[in-house]
């Protein structure tokens, strides 16, 4: 995993930059493989337990592989009052997985997020970085159809 080495160098192997380093590692592999965490621990000269405690504390990190498409549903207050729970339920049902999970064919990962700050357009669903506003339960299937 030479990419990890490059990321560590980018942050001058400074252990206070652990969160940023793990973010970059996750961007590289779309999750945090065990070997990468070991390499970060060795490279920064800090215990693996500390790397692990940070990696499990923050919601943004995943210790399991992610699907090809990430579907994120906003659960912020403004989206909630406009029925985001129905949207999440629909996605759950379509994928047959819970938020945080990935379908067995590694096609979709389902995420719920606390607030994306697009509160005026709720409910919000994001597919691979593209924002969809004012989504209804019947839209969910239609939006996902375009993912190959």
């Amino acid at each position, binding site marked *: 995993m030479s990419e990890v080495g490059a990321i560590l160098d980018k942050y001058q192997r400074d252990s206070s930059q652990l969160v940023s380093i793990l973010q970059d590692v996750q961007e590289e592999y779309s999750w945090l493989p065990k070997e990468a965490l070991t390499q970060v621990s060795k490279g920064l000269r800090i215990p693996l337990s500390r790397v692990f405690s*940070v990696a499990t*504390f923050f919601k*943004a*990190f995943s210790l399991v592989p992610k699907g090809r498409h990430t579907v994120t549903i906003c659960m912020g*207050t*403004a989206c909630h009052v406009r029925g985001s729970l129905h949207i999440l339920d629909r996605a759950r049902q379509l994928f047959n997985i819970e938020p945080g999970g990935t379908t067995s064919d590694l096609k979709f990962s389902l995420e719920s997020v606390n607030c*994306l*700050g697009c509160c005026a357009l709720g409910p919000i669903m994001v597919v691979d970085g593209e924002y969809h506003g004012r989504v209804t339960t019947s839209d969910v299937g239609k939006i996902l159809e375009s993912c190959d």
Partner: protein
Amino acid sequence: MPRVNSRAELEKLRKEIQEKRDPNKPCISVSSGTCGRAFGSERVYTAFEEEIERQGLESEIAIKKTGCLGFCERGTLVVIYPEEIFYTRVQPEDAPKVIQSVKERKVVDRLLYTDPVTGKKITYEPEIPFYKAQQRIISEANRWMDPRNIEDYVAIGGYSALSKAIFEMTPEEVLEEIKRANLRGRGGGGFPTGRKWETTKKSLGEPKYVIVNCDEGDPGAYMDRSLMEGNPHSVLEGLIIGAYTIGAHEGYVYIRNEYPLAVENLRIAVNQAEEHGLLGGNILGSGFDFRVRISRGGGAFVCGESSALMASLEGRPGEPRAKYVHAAERGLWDRPTNLNNVETWANVPQIILKGADWYRGMGTDGSKGTKIFSLVGKVNNTGLVEVPMGITLREIIYDIGGGIRDNKKFKAVQTGGPSGGFMPESLLDLRVDFDEISKVGSMMGSGGMIVMDEGTCMVDMARYFLSFLEGESCGKCIPCREGVKRMRQILTGITEGRGKEEDIELLERLSMYMAEASLCALGRTAPNPVLTSLRYFRDEYEAHIKEKRCPAKVCKELISYHIIDEKCPGCGLCVKNCPVEAITFMGKKKPVILDQSKCIKCGICFDVCKLSAIDVR
């Protein structure tokens, strides 16, 4: 771009930029914040760009991408300068028509905003009621600027507050001005900013740090995102002035990773400020050094709490610590640290430039200046609104927000995020002020203002906030970790029809213990949504518990969907959309039949039915 090495050089640069620009040259400005992009503003911008190129009009018509204009609801927004003609819901196909109208100095009627109250079309931006009742001193500049071009910020007077502070004032004088302005922290607590600065300044220990808290975690609030995306230089300018005052040479911006555009625009702004000598070593040739690092959050709500944020900056899990020693004395790396919210920092340049007396002219006795709110939920005009402190909730919701959607009845407004509370109709004439809002059991918070109508269930909302906090409690202290969980379980029971009469008393007792014994504000304020909903909407709890009924028809376990036979023409749309085949088609012109045993209450049939032939009981 060469470095700016003195105050005179900054003014010279400003003059050059201004002279280069023709104020009468038409400019098409496309609002391109995250909201705008969700509406497709990128495609709209490209369409304009291509059309201008196709017609060879590059020298006659300018085009610009700005940050968020606040009226997110109506995106994509396009403003034509210098006239300030305001177009809403613009699509890429509209580009040729709009460009034609700019050439002929005409207006495209079809794209104008229609006032829902009078039914009249409004041509110019400042005349729209949504903007008219606002007082935009912090968010106004978003309109004029491409946030990725420092020249735009300099052209409207950017960094002149910094040069005034450094060259005309001593750090003590700057501090005095901020104290006299009585600026209070916009992140929610409302702590006097000047006092915080003073404590950090006087604390022993070097180096000192200054931090921008852009970990805007409150669900339903997004003013910090909008400022960081649309005008990052104003936040940086405030931060540099603060660093100069306190005597810090290193600063951090802690920003949510869920805001990718804000991170990107901030990075560009920091680079440009460094290139221009406004950040880094020997700022403006004054001998003052100050460097900024950007740190992205990892998606933990508790990191908005200052001690948790600093732990995260040090590369540790974002757990708060007990605050018997303030961060101003021992914060980041145990050094004196001053942390303020994005909006607080953005207020600083304005106060320095226009003076504390000007600032004190706005607001109430205890709360000066303006506050940006994100007015969202079941209100007609949703978006970001900046209003003077002291305005009433009614003015915000009805005059600016245009009242409740779909002619429904107002039920409550929620402020302060999960730490705040609900305010019922009887409090609509309450004045927006840090102290007044606290008195009624809520808090100002970072500025989320979520409007709820009769279709919102208050027990469900209380459950929502507790379940949010259950996921976000860091688990370090027991009152919060266990208390939040138990409260959420009790509330879930009530919403699912398993509530017992003694539950209400138990909730109140748990609330008392958590407020007393939790380590940080997350746990201490967690009971607020429960306490305020119990205080103002106890009847809804009672309906759920005693009658097993959800008056707002929200709680799934307590409702059922029914076909209204007289209204159903048997079109079959719901049959086609039902994910579990619970609805059976009985032939044309015959009402469909819904099988309650199969129904999962997903609400799709209710959504798709065009004839309101589905009833919720």
